[in-house]
């Protein structure tokens, strides 16, 4: 990966993650990685290519296909002095790790009266439209957001991915880090100088006056695209990326809604009983007296993700559907 020091340097999302990991592994010998095909193969998405060559098989461990087992191993390793970064290839496989994450990792610190800690990061993916069908396309981050004791990170750019991952690795709590698998090849500016991004600080991606678009991970690009279209239609949209869902920067979100008086929450997880309901409620409560229209929620359609391309494409919010919803909300449709 290119290490030339120019702050205008561009890296792909995958390269940014790899660089963040590499920097932390150089800094702290306790940081190690394990998961399926993470070593020589560098994962099927090639996110970790080169790390085993630099850090050796002692710190980059290929595991059997045992998500529950090696996630549990991560919890124990984290409690006793390592700082494991566990790789779960597809977010759909979180189903297999829930006991270790929820009944173990999330509760160890509290149940032990604050004596044991679990400084573990679990990296996994989300996102549809890859033609991978129902068991390889889900965005299940709402589940872990629901559970006290876990932190949840949702980067939307190479810059954020690197800065948030370094923060996650140094955090003393279990952190679930979601990467949009469709974003790995996207490029963005990533300075060579070291930097970190704190949790719980949303980013205003674009300022606006008429409507607030709160978008996460894969949906941030969609929201920015919709904002451009809206500008053309004379609607000024403010786009906010919470970047971490827990902790959640309610203040920035609510203040924006107070200013614009209209809001849409866009998240690639299922629309019901998940992230959009939470953020919409935070807005509806925090900006109640300012809102001129109900908060609109846009998530994945309430169906298992279909394989057939023309069907799959309509299960996820797009620039166009967000644009249409925003115009309607602003009474300009």
């Amino acid at each position: 990966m290119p290490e030339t020091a120019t702050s205008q340097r561009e890296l792909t999302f995958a390269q940014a993650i790899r660089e963040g990991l590499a920097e932390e592994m150089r800094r702290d010998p306790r940081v190690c990685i394990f998961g399926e095909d993470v070593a020589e193969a560098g994962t099927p998405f090639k996110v970790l290519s080169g790390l085993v060559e630099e850090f050796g098989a002692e710190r980059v461990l290929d595991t059997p296909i045992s998500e529950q087992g090696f996630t549990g191993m991560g919890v124990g390793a984290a409690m006793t002095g390592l700082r494991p970064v566990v790789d779960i290839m597809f977010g759909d496989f979180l189903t297999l790790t829930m006991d270790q994450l929820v009944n173990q990792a999330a509760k160890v610190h509290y149940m032990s009266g604050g004596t044991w800690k679990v400084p573990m990061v679990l990296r996994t993916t989300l996102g549809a439209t890859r033609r991978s069908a129902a068991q390889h396309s889900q965005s299940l981050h709402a589940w872990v957001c629901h559970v006290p004791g876990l932190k949840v990170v949702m980067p939307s750019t190479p810059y954020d991915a690197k800065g948030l991952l370094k923060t996650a690795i140094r955090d003393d709590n279990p952190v679930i880090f979601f990467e949009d698998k469709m974003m790995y090849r996207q490029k963005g500016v990533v300075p060579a100088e070291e930097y970190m991004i704190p949790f719980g600080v949303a980013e205003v991606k674009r300022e606006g006056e008429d409507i607030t678009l709160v978008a996460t991970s894969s949906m941030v690009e969609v929201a920015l695209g919709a904002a451009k279209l809206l500008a053309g239609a004379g609607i000024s949209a403010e786009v906010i990326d919470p970047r971490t869902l827990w902790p959640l920067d309610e203040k920035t979100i609510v203040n924006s809604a107070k200013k614009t008086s209209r809001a849409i929450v866009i998240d690639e997880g299922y629309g019901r009983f998940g992230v959009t309901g939470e953020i919409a409620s935070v807005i509806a409560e925090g900006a109640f007296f300012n809102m001129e229209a109900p908060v609109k929620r846009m998530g994945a359609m309430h169906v298992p993700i279909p394989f057939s391309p023309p069907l799959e494409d309509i299960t996820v919010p797009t620039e166009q559907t967000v644009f249409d919803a925003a115009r309607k909300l602003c009474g300009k449709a």
Partner: protein
Amino acid sequence: MKAVEVSAKREAAVPAELAIRMYRQMVRIRLFEEQVNELYTRALMPGLAHLYIGEEAVAVGICEALKNTDYITSTHRGHGHCLAKGAMPDRMFAELLGKEAGYCRGKGGSMHIADPATGNLGANAIVGGSTGIATGAALTAKRLKTDQVSVCFFGEGALGQGVLYEVMNLAALFKLPVVYVCENNLYTEYTHFTETTAGDILTRGTAFGLQVEGVDGQDVRAVHAAAQRLVNRARRGEGPALLLCNTYRYTGHHVGDINREYYRSKQEEQEWKTKRDPIKNMGEWLILQKIADPAALQKIEGEVRDEMKAAVEFAIAAPYPSPEEVDQDVYA
């Protein structure tokens, strides 16, 4: 990990008709998969697919020991199982292209083909994900006394999934008519199975009370004979079994896995293809046994080529499901 035992003994000759049918079925699987690769390289297929080329003898040898009403569960590498159990290539190709004429109306794709008419409970994209389903189907067969047997196909990578041992234990306790078929093609994606599998595979079956047997997965007659022993035993109510089939995938983990030198050598691939090809070896055996002459085998291959060509054309021409279908069949 110590090399797994394999029943070395060559199997007795099988009836000519069955032998020919098994040969044809293997050829159908191979040529089907060649078309799939073609569709991928021509960018006509959405997503990826995991080809069964090289492993044909396993699916065919086992499914020929099953009745149409018997159940199978399959994997991400499932085209061979589907065909061997009786699925039609045209509807399979249609599914791979996401067309309405597909077995799942295009909603499932390559990794989720299911077909009640042939007892196919479905391919599964979760490694080890179908082991519970196969076991449950066996529970139904026993409870309702339907005389059916259930076969659970899985790659050796699924040996890493704890649920496999949970259901093996359940099957043994309830004496269920299920045969767990481990297709050890040596690799889980890009890692050799010895790096992910400690101890001994067959002993894992024994430890949970299963009848176990290992067989050369490139010898369709050996696979078939072993399958018959274990399937009939299960049908007689004598309980579940684990059948280990040692085999090899000729091509990549999926159609996009082209450069493989970093995890296995070209020479290894060559040796399996030239010395242990299940179709080539079965063909030579048929000729040796005077069951068929080269021309007859040529004829079979020609017929199958035409069948696959027509099936692909059907699928390419077939329409996509209409958008309204997107939220249909979420609930029964």
